[in-house]
């Protein structure tokens, strides 16, 4: 009964979305207030209906209702409760329900809290948002119904893929989807603005918090996914340039570019058409990501051909959404008037460079991801595009960006003094030169990217610190107490920028360092034997069989010592899940500031001997700490009172032409 209720709620949500897509748009064109006002209640009703459907599905999972096909295929009565819940979105159909739930949630938030939006803009934005929902609800109801019953019901389910039964992956999809779908609101705002024919600083201020929010979640989602790969897949890699990873990385790159270009629109009223294009592209890449993952086209072109319904439907959806919005862009964008002027050497100019390189990087990832598909489809033979390609193309694009990133925040708006900015970075030059020399000596002939990566990370970190210190007036009159007071008084957005840019430097140290100095030992070990890995002694103390709730496991014991002192106990497991018979490796990891101790236990050899893989992975945890810092920076920016109170009215928003030399000045404008 509850299951049918959920199914019915989805159908009702489709009709609500249809109404919300058509009437408010019509009302905005014809200036009919009643029709426009309809968008708000419709958004709320749509959210409520989809929430009912989502909860109905969750109920089926929690109660292990094996009359529902989706539950049978992805759950089991013995599964721990956390994974019964996360199982709802651990599969194709359920993840789509989550997708539209977040879509509707964002729409409803705009509807309820966007009271000060101009009525036509609000109506059009919500209407576009509903149009996206219509597409996805149709897709679900016609090709991917999560509420399909099965008769006769089996006695138990087939269990969730054991690799997904992990806390990291339980929360990875909701975060990633919040990021993906967060760009939908930005997209809707962009399309609505194109229809309105007006983009100004106020528009940028409405859009920026949404971009920030989406970006923060996408950052966290990607970081969580990468962390999961690191500890779960058993060889300690954290990024594989896998198409599925790329699918989430492309919107992130374009979203990062958008985040920065929206600042230029807000502060200087320039780069409007470009920002609109980025807004469209960020969501288009999210859609392409969904298509790549969901259609099965990545596994092989043949999988796509044998079950073409879903693939063809999403392809159609892509063509309508991306093609339609780009056509609208081509038609309307030339009518948008450009605003503030700026010289090439200026804060705006630096942000243009950032956009250029980030967009080129996103395009490179897109080309690399899709090239094998296109080449095969065109009969050009099969090629593989793997990590070596991406490392050879992506890294050279990012290195100049990091170099410029150190200088950019020191440049003034409109027209800047590059020489002056560089001379303020004297200390950063010295630090970079020292790091470069030391790394060059250590890594002579080994890794040029390693030397550059470490030197640029040092450059960025020092430049960020200098910029922050200057802004606090360090070195000027007043002691540390005054500096601290100034730091506290700085706008949150300034804090956000500093944290995020510093996070990137931390991340770079992690990526470069972990690749350069990893120690690895693969061997067969008997109890009592000791292996030396990266200056630590790993002693194998033996292994035992243990029982988990829905698996049995071999658990090994290692003690790690350094100079005779006990540093850590490592207990890696090798699990065999009872229902599916699948095995997973649970690496044992102890994180220390300078590196991770990492142990994996493998197959049993003769007697009590086991194959083991032992690692010391230096600074690897800095990768995720850096990503976390970036996300925290985003949240700081999001909490800036400019964006909070600032949910601005058009009249009250400063327009371009008002020179704002820095973030610091922006605060007084409110």
């Amino acid at each position, binding site marked *: 009964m509850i299951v049918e209720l959920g199914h019915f709620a989805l159908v009702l949500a489709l009709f609500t979305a249809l109404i919300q897509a058509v009437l408010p748009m019509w009302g905005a064109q014809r200036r009919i207030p009643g029709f426009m006002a309809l968008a708000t209640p419709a958004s709320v009703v749509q959210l409520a209906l989809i929430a009912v459907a989502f909860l109905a599905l969750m109920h089926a999972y929690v109660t292990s209702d094996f009359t529902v096909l989706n539950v049978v295929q992805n759950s089991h009565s013995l599964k721990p409760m956390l994974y019964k819940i996360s199982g709802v979105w651990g599969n194709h159909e359920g*993840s789509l329900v989550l997708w539209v739930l977040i879509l509707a949630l964002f729409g409803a938030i705009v509807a309820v809290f966007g009271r000060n939006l101009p009525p036509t803009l609000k109506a059009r934005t919500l209407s576009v948002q509903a149009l996206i929902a219509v597409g996805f609800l149709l897709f679900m109801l016609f090709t991917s119904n999560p509420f399909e019953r099965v008769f006769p019901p089996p006695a138990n389910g087939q269990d969730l*893929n054991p*690799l997904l039964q992990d806390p990291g*992956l339980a929360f*990875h*999809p909701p975060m990633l989807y919040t990021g993906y779908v967060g760009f939908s609101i930005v997209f809707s705002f962009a399309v609505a603005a194109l229809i309105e024919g007006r983009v100004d600083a106020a528009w940028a201020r409405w859009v920026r918090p949404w971009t920030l929010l989406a970006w923060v979640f996408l950052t966290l989602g990607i970081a969580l996914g990468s962390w999961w790969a690191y500890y779960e*897949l*058993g*060889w300690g*890699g954290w990024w594989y340039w*896998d*198409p*599925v*990873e790329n699918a989430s990385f492309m919107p992130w790159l374009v979203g990062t570019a958008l985040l920065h270009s929206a600042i230029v629109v807000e502060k200087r*009223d320039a780069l409007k058409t470009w920002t609109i294009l980025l807004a469209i592209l960020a969501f288009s890449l999210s859609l392409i990501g969904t298509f*790549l*993952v*969901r259609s099965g086209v*990545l*596994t092989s072109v043949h999988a796509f051909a044998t079950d073409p319904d879903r693939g063809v439907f999403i392809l159609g959806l892509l063509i309508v959404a991306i093609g339609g919005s780009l056509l609208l862009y081509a038609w309307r964008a030339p009518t948008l*008037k*450009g*605003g*503030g*002027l700026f010289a090439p050497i200026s804060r705006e100019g630096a942000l*243009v460079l950032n956009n*250029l390189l980030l*967009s*080129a990087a996103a*395009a*490179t990832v897109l*080309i*690399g991801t899709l*090239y094998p598909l296109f080449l095969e489809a065109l009969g*050009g*033979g*099969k*090629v*593989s*595009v*793997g*990590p*070596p*390609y991406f490392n*050879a193309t992506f890294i*050279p694009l990012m290195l100049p960006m990091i170099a410029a990133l150190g200088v950019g925040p020191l440049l003034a708006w409109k027209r800047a003094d590059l020489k002056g900015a560089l001379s303020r970075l004297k200390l950063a030059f010295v630090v970079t030169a020292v790091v470069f020399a030391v790394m060059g000596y250590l890594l002579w002939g080994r890794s040029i990217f390693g030397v550059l990566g470490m030197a640029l990370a040092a450059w960025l970190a020092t430049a960020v610190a200098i910029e922050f210190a200057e802004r606090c007036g360090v070195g000027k009159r007043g002691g540390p107490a005054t500096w601290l007071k100034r730091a506290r008084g700085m706008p949150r957005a300034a804090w956000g920028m500093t944290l995020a840019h510093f996070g990137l430097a931390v991340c770079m140290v992690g990526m470069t360092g972990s690749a350069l100095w990893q120690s690895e030992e*693969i*061997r067969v070990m008997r109890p009592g034997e000791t292996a030396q890995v990266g200056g630590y002694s790993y002693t194998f103390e033996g292994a035992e069989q243990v029982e988990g709730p829905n698996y049995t496991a071999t658990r090994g014991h290692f003690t790690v010592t350094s100079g005779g002192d006990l540093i850590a106990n490592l207990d890696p497991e090798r699990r065999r899940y009872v229902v599916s018979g699948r*095995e*997973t*490796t649970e690496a044992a990891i102890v994180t220390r500031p300078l590196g991770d101790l990492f142990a994996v236990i*493998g*197959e049993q050899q003769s007697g009590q001997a086991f*194959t083991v893989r032992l690692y010391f992975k230096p600074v690897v945890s800095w990768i995720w700490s850096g990503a976390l810092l970036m996300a925290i920076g985003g949240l700081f920016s999001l909490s800036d009172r400019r964006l909070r109170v600032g949910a601005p009215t058009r009249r009250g928003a*400063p*327009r*371009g*032409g*008002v020179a704002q030399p820095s973030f610091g000045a922006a605060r*007084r404008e409110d």
Partner: protein
Amino acid sequence: MRGAILSLVLILLTAPALAVEPKEMLDDPKLEQRARELSAEIRCLVCQNQSIDESNAGLAEDMRLLIRERIKAGDSNAEIKDYLTARYGDFVLLKPPMKPETYILWYAPAVLVVLGAFGVGVYFWRRRRGGASASDHLSAAEQQRLRKILEERDGAA
């Protein structure tokens, strides 16, 4: 995520063992290091986007052993890659070779940056020729507001 995970599961199912096994490894650590680096650039043919160095599949193991045999026989890295592409095609190389079919792939990043830089150049050039000053874009009301803000600031300072 599901696609990747499914494929990973398939890989893990085919041979539940860790990637490189101790028994496969060469005695000479230098040669073994070469084998590892080379393996990271060779695709496991039955997996999805995994190198044979990372893969647990039986075929990957065979290929790892093959590479080590060739290294012991004294082949250079290029010779081993040639040997593998002759058998399995370009598909086996994770770093696609430079040839007419892959020109677009390899040159696109540089071409995109150059085109983008050209576009930015045109943007600045046209705006400079346009010559309008920023305040021309403000309406009368906005001009007034600007004056007011500036006055307030001066007053506060």
